[in-house]
Structures are given as C-alpha cells and as structure tokens.
C-alpha cells in the first residue's frame, strides 16, 4: 500500500494499518468459524431430531407389529385350544362308543338267548373241533 495523494500516512500509521488488517481478519475468522460451528451444530441437532423422529416412527411400527403378532399368537392359541377340546371330545365319544359296545356284548352274553343258543350249538361246535383236529 503506497500513498498516491492527499495526506501521506506515517510509517507508524502504515504499520498500524497492517496490524489492523490482521486483527480484522482474525476477528472475521473467529466470527465466521463460530457461525459455521453454529450452523453445523444446528444441522447436527436437526439430523438428530430427524433421526429421533424416524426412530419414534419405527418404534411405533414395531409396537404395532408386536401387537399384531401377539394378537395372532392369541388367535393361534385359541384355535389350538379349540382343536384340543374337540379332539378330546371326539376321543371321549369314541371311548364311550367302545364302552357301550363292550357293555352290549357283556349284556348279550349274560342273556338267556345267548345261553340257549350256546346250548343249542354246543354239539355243532364240538363236531367242528373234532373235524379241525382230524385235519
């Protein structure tokens, strides 16, 4: 910087201007850096807030899915339970039929008809036994 006219600055003034330029540049850099940091921080906080919001959204989705899953499990259990009851009932019915059948057989065998029949057919059965042995 050289004076081109008007009042010439003294060497001290020139030095002072040079120092002043450095000081202004430093202050500007400091303010600029602070602002950039603030921008970055805000951007970062914004990103965090966005991520948190997305996490909240995903948590809500997961919670809804868990609810659905639990509901499905309940429904499956209910279905399984109903099936078990039905199976048990069928088994009980089958058992009842068998029991009744045995009872009927026993009942029949204790009847006079059965005894008469056995007496009547006794010679026939004896003949059959002999015949089987002869073979």
């Amino acid at each position, binding site marked *: *910087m*050289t*004076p*081109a*006219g*008007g*009042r010439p*600055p003294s060497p001290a*003034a020139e030095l*002072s*201007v040079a120092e*002043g*330029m450095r000081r*202004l*540049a*430093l*202050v*500007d*850099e*400091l*303010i*600029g850096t602070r*602002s*950039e940091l603030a*921008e970055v921080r*805000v951007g970062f906080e914004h990103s965090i807030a966005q991520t948190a919001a997305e996490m909240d959204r995903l948590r809500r989705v997961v919670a809804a899915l868990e609810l659905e899953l639990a509901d499905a499990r309940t429904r499956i259990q209910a279905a399984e339970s109903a099936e078990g009851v039905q199976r048990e009932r069928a088994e009980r019915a089958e058992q009842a039929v068998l029991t009744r059948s045995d009872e009927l057989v026993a009942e029949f065998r204790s009847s006079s008809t059965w005894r008469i029949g056995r007496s009547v057919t006794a010679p026939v059965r004896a003949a059959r036994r002999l015949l089987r042995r002869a073979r």
Partner: protein
Amino acid sequence: MTGAVTTITQPFLTLLVPAYRTPLLYLAAMLDSVRQQTDRDWQLVVVDDGSDDPALTAALAEAAADPRVVVHALPANRGIVAATRAALDLATGVFVGLLDHDDLLDAGAVAAVRAAVAAAPDTDVLYTDEAQIDADGEPRGQFRKPDFSPERLRGQMYLGHLVVYRRSLLDAVGGIRDGFDGSQDYDLALRATERARRVTHLPTVLYQWRIHGASVSHRRDNDAVFASARRALSDHLDRVGIRGTVEQVHPVGVYRIHRRPDRYPLVSLVVPTRGSRGFVGGADRAMVLHALSGVASASTYPAIEVVVVADRSTPAATVAALLDIWGDRLRVLTHDGPFNFSAQVNRGVLASTGELVVLLNDDIEVVTGDWLETMAGLALESDIGMVGAKLLYADDTVQHLGHLYERNDASHLVAGAPADWPGPQADLLVEREVSGVTAACAMLRREVFDEVGGLSPELPINFNDVDISMKITQAGYRIVVTPHAVLYHFESKSRARVVTASEVNVLRRRWNRRLQVDPYWRHDPDAVRAEIARFRG
C-alpha cells in the same frame, strides 16, 4: 368467617371492545367470532359508548347471558379513550387485547396467543398479522407484518390488530392515556413496547379488520388524530432520550423523526475505486470524481473526510482533481493487486479517523443534501449497528432500500420499483429495520466495524455486505434503512457482477439458516408485483 369458599379464576385473555352505534350485523359477527374461540378461557368486555340505540342495547344484553361477557353502558358518548378505559377497568384477564366493535377474530386466536406466550413466557406485548375485509366480509388484502421493529414503530403504528398486552405492564405504564383520541392505540403501543421485556410477533393472520364507510366513526377529525399521534411520538422521543422532531410525511399517518444529535462527529467516507469511467446524464465522466465532487457540493454535513482506496489503474489526473476539491480532507491510498472490495474497504477504514464510517461506492450521486445528518442521527444510537440509504438507478427506479434474505438467497428489496412507490403498507416511506443493507452506501460506527472484523477477506467482491450485515445483527445490533437519505447508484457501471461458487459457499456455510426467512419483509411477492404494476398504472 363462615360460608362457602369461592374460587375466582383469572381468564387468560380479556378482549376490550368499545362500541358506538355498531351496525347490528357487524356486532353479531364480532360476538360470534369471540364465542367461537377454540380456547374458551377468555373474557369479553363491551362498553357501549352512549350509542342511544335500543336495538344495540338489547343485543348486548342478550350477549351478556354468557357469564364471560361483561357489558357496560356509559351514560353519554365520551369517546374511544374513555370507553376503552372503562372496559379496561372491568377486565380481569392476565392479558388484554383490543378488538374493534366491527372486526372479527379468527377462531384459533386465543389458543394461538396462549401457545406463543407459552413458547416465550417473558412476552409482555404480542401482535399478529391481519387481513382486511370489506363491508360484506369479502377479503381485501393482508398485512403480513415484520418482527418487532422499534424504528418502524416510530414511523407508523404498524402493529395494528391484534395487539395483546400483559395487564401488569399496562398498569405499570399507566394504561390508556387521556388526550390521545384516535391515536390512543399508538400512544399505548409506544409506551408499552418501551418497557416490555419481549415483544412477540405471531406471524399468522388471526384478525380481520373491516374497512367500511363508518369504520372511522370515532375519528371525527383526522387532523386532530394525526396531531395526537405526533404528540405521542414526541413524548416517546423524550422518554427514550432521542433528540428530534416529528414530521408527518404521508396522509395515511406516516411520520419521520428528524433526529438532532447533540454533536455531529467526523464522518469518514471510504471509497474503493478503479478509476472507471461511465456515462452519467449523457456525459462521459470519471465516476469517482463525479461522486465525490457531488458529495462535496451537495452535502451539508459539517465534518467529512474522504479516504479513496484506488487501484493503480486510477488516472493521476483524477486523483489530482479530487485533491483540488477535498484538499487535506482527502487521503488517497493505492491498492496493488486485483480488485478486492473487502480488502480495500478494510484498509481505507483503518486509515481513516472518523468516529462514523461510510462505505461508499464510486458510482453514486448525492440527491438529498442532508443524507449524512440523516444517517448519522441513526448510526449514533448505541443499538443500531449499520444504516443504509435509499439508492436509485439512473432511471429513477429503486436500486436499494434494504436487503432481502430468503429462500437461500440474498437480493435487493423492491429493486426496479418506482422511486415514489410507498410500498405495500407504506413500508418504503419509513425508517425501518432490515436484515441487511448494501455496502454501496452504509454508515456505521467505527467501534461496530472493528467489533465484527470489517468486511470478510473470504468475500473479496460479492456478498461481503450480506456477511457484515449478518455479523452485525448477530452481535445484537439493529440495521436500519432510511428512505430520507437518497443517492443515485449507477450500479454495474464500475464493474460487471460475477458471483463465484466459493463466495456462495462461504455465505451459506456461515449463514444458511438466516438466509431462509426474512423477518422484516414478509409480503407476498406476487401481491407486491401486482401493486407495483397498479401503481405504475
């Protein structure tokens, strides 16, 4: 003491309505708009200012069936101040709002005010945006207001409607004063904002102002109204310690404060130049010589020094001519290297000695002789960091009346509008806060320039004025532009504007958030364009 304990709950907001011969349709609409509030924690106080209208009396009596509605009748017409004061005496709300008898509130108004106060609990004064409707309730326009602008409030009562005051503040400032009929709201706004801890702007239209033939029924004499406004402003200047006088500059109630500081300190004009030539008034001229000879001949300011920071290309004859004009009040410094506006300005400011510094382009021409007095009056106030002027293109259209920072961009407000266009809400007639001003003509105190590190060397050509504006407002100062300091700016005659990606990056890296929404200019751009076209006829 025996008996039941009665709990008295204080409503959040009391709305004060002075009523005088209100058309019943309008009254019913106003009452409905209050009853329809989504937040029901309100009180409505209506004072009939001696209307002598049985139908109105009956309608108000019916409204008073709601326990939140208080109706009081004055025995005779005593004017809006007495009626509003009577309403205030009956108000019990934590906050008090003023509602005209023929206007409408948005159904969410009370809720929105409550939310805004919850977000900023030290709010003492709050104002909202407003819409205008005609007699039939049809929309006529909107006023999307700036954030709190004390300088602008000295030029016009821009707060308008809805304004809400904390009751304790109203009591502290003495409530509504006698003797300001027609401008009592302006007087109150000035006194309250002077002492408010916070003035909150709620940028939402929550109020519909009905403009019709009878809407100025309380303003029997507009001259008296404006006289009381000037008195309110004079009182305000006394209270806040501003020496000056008040002048009405527009018939709609726009005022100018002529500041009369007790001293006019030395002003240093810092002018970077390349010694370019250009055509002004049809003649080929050395721009810097034309600018500074004009400053010398037109300016009335008593103490000016000039520091020209000249590229080596500046002709010696131009420098010699400048020395002839300015003598020992001129210092010319030579700048080596490529044109670097920021470095040249910083060097020039450091070499100058004035308490006030004006950054000035070499392609200007002074129009108003007292431009420096006008700018200095503002710049000497401790909370103002920088002052801009009204710059005109050679064709008498506006080149600069403040910057606009929005949508990731920085531009000049209303560039190209006719010089005498008043703006959407007479904005351009008043001294007012802006987000930034151009370094083509900007005054600031040396201490502010030093505090913010001058113009950034990272922005050698473009956006250095945007950057310094941001630095100044970030430091807590206001930036004000005045339409009363006028200069021509023959922009682009000294250099072609080429913006580099690096400059854009620096600006966005530092100030991205503040480049999105401008707090001081919220008008709809389409409406502004339409108004300019209408003004041009």
